[in-house]
């Protein structure tokens, strides 16, 4: 079963959705957050991967 866990940037509110990926950041759709390269950064504020946390109740 595909991992659909959303991860939010604690600094700017960007939400990483595996279903969307981050095309401009070199991450294809379907890639789990844990599998994104460690040097990837938030596409909105440039924060590091460590600044994200898994969230189940994000206001979207």
């Amino acid at each position, binding site marked *: 079963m595909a991992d659909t866990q959303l991860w939010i940037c604690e*600094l700017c*509110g*960007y*939400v990483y959705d595996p279903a969307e990926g981050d095309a401009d950041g070199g991450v294809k759709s379907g890639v789990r957050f844990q599998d994104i390269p460690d040097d990837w950064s938030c596409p*909105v504020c440039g924060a590091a991967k460590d600044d994200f946390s898994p969230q189940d109740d994000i206001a979207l």
Partner: protein
Amino acid sequence: MIAAPRHFAALAGRLRWDPAAIDLRADALAWPALSLERRARLTVLLAGFRVAESSVAEELAPFGPAADDRDTAAAFAAQHADEKRHAALFDRVAAEVLGLPGEGPQERRAAARAVTPAALLELFERRLPAAAAALATGRTDLAEAVGLYHMLLEGIVLGSGQRALLDDLADGALPGVRAGVELVERDERWHVGFGLRCLRDLEPDPTRVTTLLAEGEAAAAAWGDAVPVHVRARAEAMHRRRLVAVGLTRAAAGSRA
């Protein structure tokens, strides 16, 4: 995807800080010992922030009333409180560290204006007030105003200026200033995220997005030589990446910011 406006009002409440509590005494003592070249570069940046933060604090007022829902208006109000804090911090830096002349904030702002790049003054003291006035009177819409304020001014101009300051002060030369800029930068990250969410919800015309993208280069150059070329380039790249991230424009083939 970006969190909804109500996320940002709650986030702002958790991040609140006091600009009067930043200790600038060591900075005031250290300032005269910095090299002339370094002081000149830092003066442009810090005086520019003195001018720019006052302007953004003043001109955000009509944004909340122009929003069509309570959560968005509340997030604009929370941002407005942040901007007032930022203006207060940079006025303290101008008075206590740079030693800009003036009996009060308005006189120091005038003194700061004298050393602020012309392109920055054009953006913050002419274009932004004009856009805010147009928004207040219904002559422009919120998407246009947010595009200028949050995407160009905060996302590119202020963001690149903060990066240049943090890089320059990484050696601890002005610890209070650096601590303050770190707090300002933290706030600006959510401001940009919130603005991007607003822009996405407002569904601007594609030609407007194209214009917004094209304006990134000029915005990144507003500081002139005070901001290194690589910092400007990154700010411009991030601008495009943000718009891609919320689907307002497409990713370039093989791109990676």
